């Protein structure tokens, strides 16, 4: 039995001459929460389709719980809850009909949990799916995905189009709870602030390539913003790798991607950098720094 809930190796997806996913490799341990971030068009959705066995990659493989996602999709879906980027349920069906339909397809189905969640979200069961707001559709999808107590929950940009309250509800009340119950979560999102509190690992895609794949804590510990009172600042890049350097007023600001207290103190002792203030960074800031730095 493998320890990986997800193992993607050398995955390449191509649309004609365009490479959407370029030799991506990553793995997610069972019970972990993995957040995949990236700009629009970075290749996240293509990777998720491969992950769910909905698209055959050009090369490479996607394994879920040790089984090939493409060839074993139908069986694997008994263990996987999915919330897609765009609500895909038939608009003419009522929420109750959709729940009834899904209940007949799964070996285990907790109808009471669906009803309870929808009640919490305030979504009436009799509503026509097409008449629901974007946020409500996501909530219905999530309630359906969770009704099977999935081993893996795949969320493809679940907060897209949701208001602040709905985001909070989604992330804190539901995902946080699931993470505590050892469910593996794979989430693609732009909302880094939302996942920062519970994501164990984060990956970042850019132009089809996975440019970052790291534990969140490690990532956050090595990124620092350093504000200098004076400029110009002469930073020894052999010691501290700076991603972004900006000047403002009489001072300067640098973002360091391999911050280390002792190295910084050593540099301070040997260089004339004057007064400096070191700040921790949020995931969102790190993402902007990396994406902005590359662009």
């Amino acid at each position, binding site marked *: 039995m493998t320890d990986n809930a997800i193992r993607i190796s050398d995955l390449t997806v191509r649309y004609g001459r365009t490479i959407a996913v370029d030799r991506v490799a990553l793995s997610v341990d069972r019970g972990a929460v993995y957040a995949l971030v990236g700009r629009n068009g970075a290749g996240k959705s293509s990777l998720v389709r491969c992950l769910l*066995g*909905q698209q055959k990659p050009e090369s490479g493989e996607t394994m879920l719980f040790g089984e090939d996602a493409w060839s074993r999709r*139908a069986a694997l879906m008994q263990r*996987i809850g*999915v919330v897609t980027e765009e609500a*895909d349920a*038939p608009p003419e*069906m009522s929420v109750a009909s959709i729940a009834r*339909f899904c209940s007949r*397809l799964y070996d285990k189905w907790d109808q009471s949990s669906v009803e309870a969640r929808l009640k919490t979200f305030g979504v009436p069961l009799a509503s026509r799916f097409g008449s629901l707001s974007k946020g409500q559709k996501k909530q219905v999808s999530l309630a359906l995905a969770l009704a099977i107590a999935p081993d893996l929950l795949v969320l493809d940009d679940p907060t897209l189009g949701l208001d602040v309250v709905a985001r909070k509800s989604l992330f804190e009340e539901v995902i946080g709870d699931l993470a505590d119950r050892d469910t593996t979560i794979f989430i693609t999102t732009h909302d880094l602030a939302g996942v920062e509190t519970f994501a164990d690992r984060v990956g970042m895609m850019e132009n089809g390539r996975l440019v970052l794949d790291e534990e969140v804590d490690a990532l956050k510990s090595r990124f620092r913003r350093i504000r200098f009172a004076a400029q110009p600042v002469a930073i020894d890049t052999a010691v501290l790798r700076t991603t972004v350097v900006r000047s403002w007023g009489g001072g300067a600001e640098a973002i360091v991607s391999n911050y280390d207290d002792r190295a910084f103190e050593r540099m301070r002792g040997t260089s004339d950098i004057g007064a400096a203030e070191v700040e921790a960074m949020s995931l969102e800031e790190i993402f902007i720094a990396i994406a902005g730095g590359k662009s």
Partner: protein
Amino acid sequence: MKSALVIAARELEEKRFVAYAAVAFAILPFILGLIPAIGGKSPSDAIALGSLTFATGFAVALAVLTGAGFVGRDLSDGRMSFYFSRPVASASIWFGKLTAGILMIVGCFGVIVAPAWLAAGRYWKTFWTLTLGEMSVNVLVCALALFLIAHVIGTFARSRSPLIVADFAAAVLCGVTIRFLVLPLAAGRASMLVTWLGIFLSAALAVAIVGGGAWQLKRGRTDRRRNHRALSQFLWGTMAVALLIAAGCVAWVISAKPSDLTTMVYASRGAGSPFLVLTGRARYRGDYNATYLIDVGDNSARTIDLDSWGLGGVRFTRDGRSVVVPRREKDSADLVIYKRGASNPVETGLTLPATYYPIFVSDDGNRIATIVNGNLSIYDVPQKRSLVSVRVPSDWRSFYQGYFVSPELFRFYVQKEDGLSIYELDTRVRGLRDTGAIADRGFVFFMLDPTVSRMIVQRHNLEGITLNDARSGAVIKTIASENIRNFCFLRDGRMAIVEGPPSKMTLHILSSDGALQRDIPFDGGGRVGFVGDDGTRVVLSVANKESSLRRLVAINLDRGVIERDASLPKDWTMINWENRPPIEPLREVVYGDGAGHIVAWNPVTGARRMVMGG
């Protein structure tokens, strides 16, 4: 299976409004029946007619609309992931949706038709030759075919993929291939095989679409372009295989050899010609009629492409060396000439309408006369050019026969209401001349001598025969006789006449000027036919008195005795007659024995030999 049913139920539940519409259409004919202007004195008629019309229209429209969208729309709207993110196999998704579509079409048709059937069932046969069951099956088969085809077109069109150009090319290629498969079968009048070919290819198409649907979702899943590509591959791949199989079968059918024949449908042989055109059915080849040109001199045979019209256009030259065949080309026929000893036919360059063959050939086959669209033309084969073309009188709508008196002079006989008219066309003068007539109010039957200078004439309803001038039609001599059974000229210009009651027939041999030379009595039957002569003996086909079976009788003209008397099988086939004797002497009598064999009988020795047949 369970997943497919769950999906089918979901699809039906989603589209239940269609059932409501069907119920409305079921009620509508009853309302129409109550309106006096529509229902009139027979509201049952209006109910029955309206119901079937609505049911048919509804089923067809539903088939097209549902077929075009039940997969293609989910793909283009990005909703297929709803199914693919559930634990259901691709095949279950396809067959679930397919089942729902079929049930919807069939069910709605039934919903609309059933009330009218119960209310006005006894009127169904009044309006249509088909029973309701037959009609329903026809409508539903058409609707389901449209449903499947609409699915293919819907998937292709909604993918917005340039691959659709390749699909169009493949569809055209399939159509062209099918046409090439049908043509040889149609030429062989194999209507049953054409029907079976149609059924086979339709079934293959249905399998290709149904299987292709499952394949497209298995390979393409939520991606519309990949769905399109997978469906294309499966559909055209399956059709290619089906067409290859069909082509193999057709090739096998049309490759039948004369030895494969079990039944002869048609046999034609020119008097004195070694050529024989034979059409027959071969074993295991259904109703396909294979046609061969057989040279009984060397037992060689070649397949020729002749349709039923073409058979009537075959002409054997009097010298026995050539045969003119109209080879079908779409809506026309190219005349080609097969010559003894030559492997390939000679293209004459002459094209005629495909269904009408007034063709007359000179003794050596170098000149051909045709009458097309009211124009009589004489064509020179070696030069491949028309020598003369004249407008024929507009009252030429009746039977005519033509003969080359010489390569330059063409004479023809036209049966008109007032008798037989005689015309000549001289290629040197290029003028049409009216040379004579034989007045009669009925059909004038005649036989010509080898040089087309004299003719024996038997007028309508007259038992007696006369010797006439073949150019002017003037009577030369009355050959007074009763009980004339048959008559002809022999190759040397003498006349042979069979006369007398069935029990006591006599063969009279007359000189070319009509003087009696010899009377030969023989045991005849009901009917007597002249087969030919070799200068020494004449061969007759004679019906037996008791059994009506026929036999061949060879009578020695010099000795006045019956030399050979051979029975013919019951289902024998033979050989067309000509009213002018051939150049070559009769060496063998060739006939089909009714069991697929061609047999040659030697009147000198009485020996029979097998020419062709299984």
